[in-house]
């Protein structure tokens, strides 16, 4: 194990020449994870399980900070819009169906390992059990801010009571009168449309929330902080109690019920109102996203993963030094979890490029899977289609990997035995809209982290 360097700040051994000024300290570790979103965090935590020294380098929070609150693993692609939710396949079977219907999707690449998908989801949600509800194996149906019901393997604790398939009775959708940020009518429409699929009856409940002057134009983060104040949640609960419709089984609020889950805002409102309270999924800026970033940070620190802030420069891959925020890091294995366009792992610079190591990029989705390597060389503007529902090669751009999460070159050969990739930097799927983004991040992160930590003889 690379514990030879007892102090991370120790200077490199003098070589006889006068010491170079501001010599960066050298860090040697077993696994370097580049990227601090969900995939990178899960990879680091999975790698850390085997006890090695794990460094996670990140420039900024990943796109996971834009997360709306749902852990989307797989919707059932075989279900029709009229198929009742009770008849939808479970999460793992849905993933198998995605693998069978979307060529080139990470689930398709990993189809022989999908029996481990559930281990990965349980591992990741277990690590984050402080904020995530335990997954049940079937999809929960959660209200979005845009009038739809969204299937997710699990979600924040504060959203679990809003699972439309589980509410037995009337669901109260709270419409805050003092704030224009959310359209509660639109939110409720998501359940109205799904009434025949298994959604409960909904009733809009206008509440005089956020009616004081400072709140009228406050941003979601501020509203969340305001509700954490002693007594604020209890007042909201008492207000809700008076306006609850008959047979109300649960109430859903805008996703601003406290920044810090430890403030227990939903629980306090529920206790005062006498019904379970949940949040619907979030738009941007996202309070759930910020909660997730904080939970990831806390868990990584607790697990003993070393966090380094800064961009990775002069990177050459596993075994060679890379510069991260003024320090030199040498790692036996690497996991690239740099995300796609938001995270910055894939960028458009005349053509599509992978930004850390310059690996070959594939741009394809579904029916274009075979043409990927050729498509990526075209200008990014040529990789979108007019029909927004059709496959968009640009949005599915990313690295091509094998079942061990090794990035591949254009001919399909492994680039480096100890280089792995995870999350949205892996292409073949449109992670932002196909309903599998977080599932792919957790599954590929778990696989890549374990692969990077294992096989020390290689």
């Amino acid at each position, binding site marked *: 194990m690379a514990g030879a360097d007892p102090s991370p700040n120790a200077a490199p051994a003098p070589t006889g020449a006068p010491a170079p000024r501001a010599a960066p300290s050298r860090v040697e570790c077993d696994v370097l994870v580049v990227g601090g979103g969900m995939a990178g965090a899960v990879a680091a935590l999975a790698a850390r399980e085997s006890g090695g020294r794990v460094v996670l380098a990140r420039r900024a929070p990943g796109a996971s900070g834009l997360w709306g609150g749902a852990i989307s693993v797989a919707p059932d692609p075989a279900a029709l819009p009229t198929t009742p939710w009770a008849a939808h396949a479970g999460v793992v079977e849905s993933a198998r169906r995605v693998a069978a219907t979307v060529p080139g999707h990470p689930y398709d690449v990993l189809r022989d390992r999908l029996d481990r998908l559930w281990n990965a989801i349980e591992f990741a949600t277990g690590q984050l059990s402080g904020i995530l509800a335990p997954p049940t194996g079937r999809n929960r149906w959660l209200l979005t801010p845009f009038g739809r019901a969204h299937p997710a393997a699990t979600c924040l604790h504060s959203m679990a009571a809003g699972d439309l398939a589980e509410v037995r009775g009337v669901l109260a959708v709270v419409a805050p009168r003092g704030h224009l940020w959310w359209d509660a009518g639109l939110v409720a429409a998501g359940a109205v449309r799904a009434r025949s699929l298994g959604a409960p009856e909904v009733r809009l409940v206008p509440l005089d929330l956020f009616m004081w002057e400072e709140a009228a134009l406050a941003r979601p983060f501020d509203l969340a902080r305001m509700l954490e104040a002693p007594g604020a949640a209890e007042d909201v609960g008492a207000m809700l109690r008076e306006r609850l419709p008959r047979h109300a089984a649960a109430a859903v609020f805008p996703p601003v019920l406290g920044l810090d889950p430890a403030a227990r805002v939903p629980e306090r409102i529920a206790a005062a109102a006498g019904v379970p309270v949940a949040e619907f999924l979030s738009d941007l800026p996202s309070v759930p996203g910020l909660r997730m970033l904080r939970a990831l940070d806390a868990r990584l620190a607790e697990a003993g993963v070393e966090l380094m802030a800064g961009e990775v420069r002069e990177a050459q891959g596993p075994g060679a030094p890379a510069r991260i925020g003024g320090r030199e890091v040498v790692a036996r294995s690497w996991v690239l979890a740099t995300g796609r366009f*938001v995270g910055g792992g894939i960028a458009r610079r005349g053509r599509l490029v992978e930004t850390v190591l310059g690996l070959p990029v594939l741009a394809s989705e579904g029916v274009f899977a075979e043409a990927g390597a050729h498509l990526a060389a075209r200008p990014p503007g040529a990789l979108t289609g007019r029909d927004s529902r059709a496959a968009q090669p640009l949005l599915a751009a990313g690295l091509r990997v094998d079942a061990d999460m090794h990035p591949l070159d254009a001919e399909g050969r492994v680039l480096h035995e100890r280089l792995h990739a995870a999350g949205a930097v892996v292409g073949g799927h449109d992670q932002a809209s196909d309903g599998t983004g977080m599932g792919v991040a957790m599954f590929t992160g778990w696989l890549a982290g374990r692969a990077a930590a294992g096989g020390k003889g290689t």
Partner: protein
Amino acid sequence: MTTRFGALSYLAWRALGAHPWKRAVRGGTGTQRFLAAYGSEGLDPTTAEDRAAAEAASACISCGLCEAGCPLAGVAPSIRDLGLHAAFRLYAKGAPELRHAAEGLDACARCAGCEPLCPTGVPISRLVRYFQGKAAERRRLEAAGPTPDGPRT
């Protein structure tokens, strides 16, 4: 044929006679004349610096994560109403729109607490300083503008 000859001789007269004559009579540099004609409409000449700033600002995806680290976001009404990222979005629409974000830009305390929070790596504090300068410049231009805003004759 005569139409073509007429058009070409008109263009020749413009290029060789009217235009140099006008230039001699009006005076001022090209930039000054351009600004006199179009400055009040916000069509400032764009420098290489402006283009670099606009490109950096265009990486903003309006996710609002920076606001979580902005101590002013909850206090300064201008930032609270629009959000810090509004300055980038407004600038993307055109320099004249920057005046709407001027108050928010001026409220910035330059603590740079937002910068490590940006997922797309926008150099926020550098851009805020740059846009503050641009907004001040626009205010000066508009105050000293040769023509008021409005339809041009």
